């Protein structure tokens, strides 16, 4: 996930900024946001937490590693559009309910 984030940072720098936080070094928010997965991505707009309906049941965060850069950019753009309109919950363009397909 780190590679995806690093490569995307320049492309979306006009409307999004990415902060990488090590939860072992900064454990202050672990209980507040329930951060215990290997990678978690959460979205904030003007100090408000924005929820995304990904179909996984957990609307607060993306707690797996995305492989595709374009997918991630789409999610960020959707969040931005919805947040600017004042929505607290946006619907992700792709459904991840079957992400654990076997």
């Amino acid at each position, binding site marked *: 996930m780190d590679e995806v984030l690093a490569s995307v940072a320049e492309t979306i720098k*006009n*409307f999004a900024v990415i902060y990488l936080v090590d939860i072992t070094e900064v454990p202050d928010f672990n209980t507040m946001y329930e951060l215990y997965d290997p990678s978690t991505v959460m979205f904030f707009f003007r100090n408000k937490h924005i929820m995304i309906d990904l179909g996984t049941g957990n609307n607060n965060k993306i707690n797996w590693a995305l492989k595709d850069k374009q997918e991630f950019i789409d999610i960020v*753009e959707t969040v931005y*559009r919805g947040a*600017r309109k004042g929505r607290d919950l946006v619907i992700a363009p792709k459904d991840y309910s079957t992400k654990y397909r076997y």
Partner: protein
Amino acid sequence: ATLADSFLADLDELSDNDADVLEEENNDVANMEEDIDGDLADIETLNYDDLDSVSKLQKSQRYIDIMQKVEDALEKGSDISNQGLVLEDDPEYQLIVDCNGLSVDIENEIVIIHNFIRDKYRLKFPELESLVHHPIDYARVVKKIGNEMDLTLVDLEGLLPSAIIMVVSVTASTTSGKPLPEDVLQKTIDACDRALALDTAKKKVLDFVESRMGYIAPNLSTIVGSAVAAKLMGTAGGLSALAKMPACNVQLLGAKKKTLAGFSTATSQFRVGYIEQTEIFQTTPPALRSRACRLLASKATLAARIDSTRGDPLGNAGKTLKEEIHKKIEKWQEPPPAKQPKPLPVPDSEPKKKRGGRRLRKMKERYAITDMRKLANRMQFGVPEESSLGDGLGEGYGMLGQAGSGKLRVSIGQSKLAAKVAKKFKEKNYGSSGATSGLTSSLAFTPVQGIELTNPQAHAHQLGSGTQSTYFSETGTFSKIKRT
């Protein structure tokens, strides 16, 4: 009486003028006919058996003089020019000018002789003229073949490219020609000899001009080289003639006609003449050659113009132009700048460019809500609507088909655009007099039910009563509201 007389006199003058004009016209026509006869006579003389009546150049005094001087000058070697003298007074310059004129004359002469040879040889081998275009090559081939019917005995190696030799041999085996009589053959061979002699003379003249090129036109020779410069000057007919040509013509000087015989034209270079032989052209990569040719031609024309006015005798302008050409060609060969990755723009920051206009409106009409759907969407107050499955189940029909709507069936109705157009049309055609055509009627003939009397105003108000304002109605007119 005098006035009447003067009028009569005017009339007489008019008629006289007509008569004069007619006579003059007749004279002109007669003259023209004589001229045409004269021209025809000239053309006919070319068909004479005598070569000398056709090609007079070699016997002319001017030719002999100039050739003599050229040979002397060539033997003397290159002459260090007298810088002090004005160009026009230098006898060598005069010789150069004469040489230019002569080379053009020689070329014309060669064309005339070529026509002569062709006419004579047509009896023997008519297809040869379409296979071998160049007059000198044609003359050489004719001389080699002679009266031979079997081309396998004739060796054309070195005269033509081998592919053309093959085509010539194949065509000769199926040719419809017959051997020539002896005297005709002799005349043809003589004409070929003369053409070849003229060709060698032209070469000598060009060599001489080339050796003097650095003195005559230093700027031009710096750019294209002295051989090509000499050829260009020779074909143009002098330095001033070359300077007067536009650059596009200079590019085409010396361009060969396209080769036929089924060869692919994909590799043939398009529209290059003597410029092709310059060093700069030969060293450019093939992809850039047509651009380079145009560039060379334009700069060469500039240099020729400088030289014709003797503006820069040392040739510095030519050097700067050459540098320019080199720089430009190098710049063309640079790779394009690397692609920068651009960040995405902020979403929704740039408003969509909404288009308008007639075309878009017509497109939107296809998806607009029709009157039928509008009626179905609305309900009358207190009146239950009919539905497709009855009893409130299924789709509701709204105000469609309700009693009191005044219509048996809902028509599509006019679109707004059509309404506007119809209104304008009506105003144009019927608005002026105010009287409508006598054939209009308020009766509507429906196909199923027969005659239906409709009040044309009711249709307009059905939808409009509560919801549509009459301010912005397309078909509405001015209305008068009585003060109560």
